[in-house]
Structures are given as C-alpha cells and as structure tokens.
C-alpha cells in the first residue's frame, strides 16, 4: 500500500473518503499545476491547472487534437511535462500511479494478441506485485475474478481475447483497469467503437464504478456524459472549467472557437444550461492555428449518437 514519504497524508485522504464523500480530503486525488507540454514544436497543453478531489466524477471534453490523451498520459507519468507538475495524492506519478486504473483508447489495442481474458485482466495487478518474477498470488487471482464479475464477463474468463465481441473486449479492458482496486479511474474516449445497446450497459457500469472511485473521463462526445458527472471541463490546449457539472457557452466558445450545436440525444444528459443562450453569444476572436474542422464540430455537438466512427 502507501509508500513512505507522505504516506500518512495519503492514509488520511483514503480514510476520509471512505467515511464520507462530502468530507473532502485535504490532499486532492489529482493535482495539476501549470502543465505545459510541447511536441514537435507545437504546444499541446498550455498551462493546464486542475484539481480533482477524491470521489469526484470529472469529464473533460474537447475536440480531437485538443490534448485530452496527452493530459491523461501526463497524469500517468507516461509523458514528462516541459513545465508544471502532476501530483497523485501529493506525490509524483511514478510513485503513486499504482493507485490509478487506466482505460486507453480502444483502437490502440492489438486484440489479436494470443492471451486469455483472465491473463489480460491479471496484468492489471502487476503494479501491486514486487519481486523480479512478478508472480501472481491467490489474492491477485481472486481480485481478477472479482473484477470480471463486476463487468459481467466472468463466464468469458478462459476465452481468448480475440474471440470476444467489441463490447466484451471493452469490458475486459475496464476489468483490467479496476483489478488493482484503483482510487482513480482514467478513461480515454470510452464510447468510441461501442454499439448502442452496449453503451447503455456501459453507463450503468460507470455509475457503479463511480460509487467506489474517482472517475476522470475524456471524450469528444458530449453525448456520453451522464448525469453522474460532478464537474465538466473543456480542453483545447488550454483548460476551461467552472468546477461545476455545466458547460457554459463561454467554455464552449473558448474551447471550440465557435458556437457549437449542443443538443443531446437519447441516453445522454442535457449538459447545456440554456441552449438558446448560446446562439445569442457573440463569437469570440479566433486565435491562430486553433481552427477546427466541420467533422469536429459535428462530433462535439453530438449530432450523431453513440460515438461510432
């Protein structure tokens, strides 16, 4: 469990949250300060600051190429910041990232890899295992079964990953993310490639998981954001948020640099406070090199449902 250094601090944070959601711990689950990342001469993230308290459900929306995945990867310590910092329960990502569960973008996977669902889910335990061989204990195997049960895929445990349907594969990936009993779950575009019936279940799963952990989700699909979300932020190189569950018209204008049609469909929760208000807002000045394509507009406006591409 917690590593030396500020271990007591973290202990307190964990205990407080378990006792009561409202009693917000002194140390935020994730703290990001002035995070700036350049890649190939371009600024991907510009002085992004963010504080996510334990137990919160956080949705970050923004256009493709807005730096959403980069932000998640810097929280995970996979990308080093050029300036600013990321802290997980007051420590650097390298120290405390074992407390995180991560669901990467679906298309990054090679699902043809010869591995059983059980073995794949078990790899999510490796962060807790010491020793050169990293052998799984009975406890690890029990946790894997527990995680598969939560996601409703225990009956598929000994099937090969490639034999599963897209929705089942996705649930297997989420099982891997929660098998280490993370404090914080990071989801990258979780609805892409998921068909509608699965998506409905997926929402239920998210709501269930949120009862146990802090959830941070990034997406370009506003339609996915359910009513369980506590805070919505908009990210397009810069971060815009009012620390509430509403997207305001100025956040949208700042993020997408143009008014966006924000009518939600079907399952989705209506996130915009007053739709007519948006249209009356004068267009802000466009910044250079942040033009977005029609395609992005359609996506962020979720005129198509289900996030299928």
């Amino acid at each position: 469990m917690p590593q030396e250094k500020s271990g007591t601090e973290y202990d307190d944070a964990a205990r407080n949250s378990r006792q009561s959601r409202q009693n917000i711990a002194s140390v935020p689950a994730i703290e990001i300060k002035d995070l700036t990342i350049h890649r190939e001469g371009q600024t991907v993230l510009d002085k992004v600051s963010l504080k996510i308290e334990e137990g919160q459900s956080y949705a970050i929306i923004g256009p493709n190429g807005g730096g959403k995945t980069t932000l998640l990867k810097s929280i995970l310590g996979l990308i080093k910041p050029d300036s600013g910092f990321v802290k997980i329960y007051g420590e650097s990502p390298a120290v405390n990232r074992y407390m995180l569960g991560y669901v990467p973008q679906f298309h990054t996977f090679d699902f043809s890899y010869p591995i059983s669902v059980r073995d794949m889910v078990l790899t999510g335990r490796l962060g807790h295992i010491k020793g050169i061989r990293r052998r799984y204990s009975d406890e690890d195997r029990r946790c894997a079964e527990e995680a598969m049960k939560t996601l409703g895929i225990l009956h598929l445990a000994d099937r090969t990953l490639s034999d599963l349907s897209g929705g089942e594969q996705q649930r297997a990936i989420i099982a891997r993310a929660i098998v280490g009993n993370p404090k914080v779950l990071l989801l990258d575009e979780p609805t892409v490639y998921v068909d509608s019936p699965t998506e409905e279940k997926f929402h239920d799963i998210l709501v269930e998981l949120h009862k146990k952990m802090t959830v941070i989700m990034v997406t370009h699909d506003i339609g996915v954001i359910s009513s369980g979300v506590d805070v919505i932020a908009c990210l397009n190189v810069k971060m815009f948020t009012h620390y509430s569950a509403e997207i305001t018209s100025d956040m949208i204008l700042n993020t997408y640099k143009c008014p966006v049609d924000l009518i939600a469909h079907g399952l989705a929760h209506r996130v915009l406070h007053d739709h007519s208000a948006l249209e009356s807002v004068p267009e802000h000045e466009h910044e250079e090199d942040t033009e977005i394509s029609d395609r992005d507009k359609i996506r962020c406006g979720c005129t198509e449902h289900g996030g299928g591409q």
Partner: protein
Amino acid sequence: MIDVIAELISAFGYEFFRNALLAGILASTACGIIGSFVVIKRMVSLTGGISHAAFGGVGLGYFLGFSPILGATVFCVATAAIIAKLRHIAHQHLDTLVGAIWAAGMAIGILLVYLTPGFAPDLYGYLFGNILLVPSSEIFFMGALLAAIIAITAIFYNQLLAVTFDEEYATVMNIASDKIIALLLIMTAVTIVMLIQVVGIILTIALLTLPAAIAREFTGRLDRMFYLSTILGIAFTTCGIFLSYTLDVPSGATIILIGAAAYIIALCAKTFCRR
C-alpha cells in the same frame, strides 16, 4: 526406397549428422520462444535488420582474423541495443532506421570481405547456412545460449507478456518496459546468431517467423504458441536435414521451403475450416 532408409540410418553413425540434428533442435527451440514474440509484437522487419547487420560482423571477423560468428554475435547484439535505445527517439522513422542498419551491415560485410587478402572460407555458409557443417564446440555454445533464453523468458514471463501486449499499461504498472523490450531484442539477437549456423543470414527471418506464424493460427495463448512453434520448427529442420542429405541439396533453403509450404498449407486449412 530401402536404400534411402538404410542410408539415413547409417547417417546417424556420423558425428556431423547427429550434430546437425541437435543444432536443428536447439535453434528451433529458441525460435519457438523468440519467434512467437517477434510475430505477435510485429518485429519481423526489425529482426531482418538485426540479422543482416550480422554480415558486417562476419566481414570484420574475416578482416581481423577472428571467428566470424563472434563478429556476428557482437554486431547483432550491438544492433539490437541501438534499436532498443533509438526506439523512442526515432519514433516514426524507426522503419527507415532499420532499413539503413540492414543495408549498412551488409555493405560493411561485403567491403571487409573484399579487403581481406586471400579467399574467405565458408562465406557461402554464413550467408545461406550449412547445418551439416556445425562443429561439436558450436553445439555446446548453442546449448548455453538456449538455456539462457529459456531461463530469462521463464523469470520475466509475466513482464514480457504485459509489455508485449500493452507497453504503456505495463509502464503504468511500474514495469521497466524499455528494459524488458531491450532484453527481448537482445534475446532476439542471440537467437539470430544461433540461426545463422542453421539457415544462414539471408534466411534467418523465415525460420524465426514461419513456425510461430503457423502456431498463431491454431492457438490463442502465448505459452502454447511457444510449444507448438518449437515442435513445428524441429519438424522443419529435421525433415530439411534428411531431405538435403539424401538429395544432396543446400540444407538451409530446403528447411525454409518446407516451412513455407507448411505455412501455406496451414493458411489454406484454416480458411477451409472456417467455411
């Protein structure tokens, strides 16, 4: 027919023939393990680069008068280490980098062989392999390398599995992904050195990938892929050795053609079964 069988049985009386079979078994086992990783991690072209760079080492061995296979070992391991190091820096240019290493290694070899005074013995053997010429000392060398590969794979199995499936996630799990990949690449280099004896530099990729590629079609587990491709590799090399001995044709090419034929048959069988 009886003549052929009698000839084969009498062949067992020769040390070179027994050595050839043994070398085939040792190399095939290494291929079964490392080839499976090469196939599932899609490192085929990368492996081609490492194996062709070996020719530079062979040339250096001739030029400076030490064992060409030692030179090949140094070049293979060095190339693997360079690729492991540059993997992230070069990023999208890795493909080009591998191509450059591939060609440069061959060019160095050709130049050094040309500059070496006199005739370069066994040069043909290094390029195209001659398993019937593997000396006993080489068998011990191969055995030691194989033992190391098996031990390392057994110790780091969980980490190798995690890293080859999803490298970034493995890093989040606090696995030293870069080191594990470097380890895998160096084991690949060592396997290539063993294979140069059997099928030669030009044909190493084929023996490394064909058995694993067939095995992959029929199993969904990495460990079963190891076993199945090892058995297939042993079958290919053994059949190839017998055929090349009786027909008096080059052994390396015979082994590879048997493997390629089996691969085509396997793919056809798989397609046929699906219908």
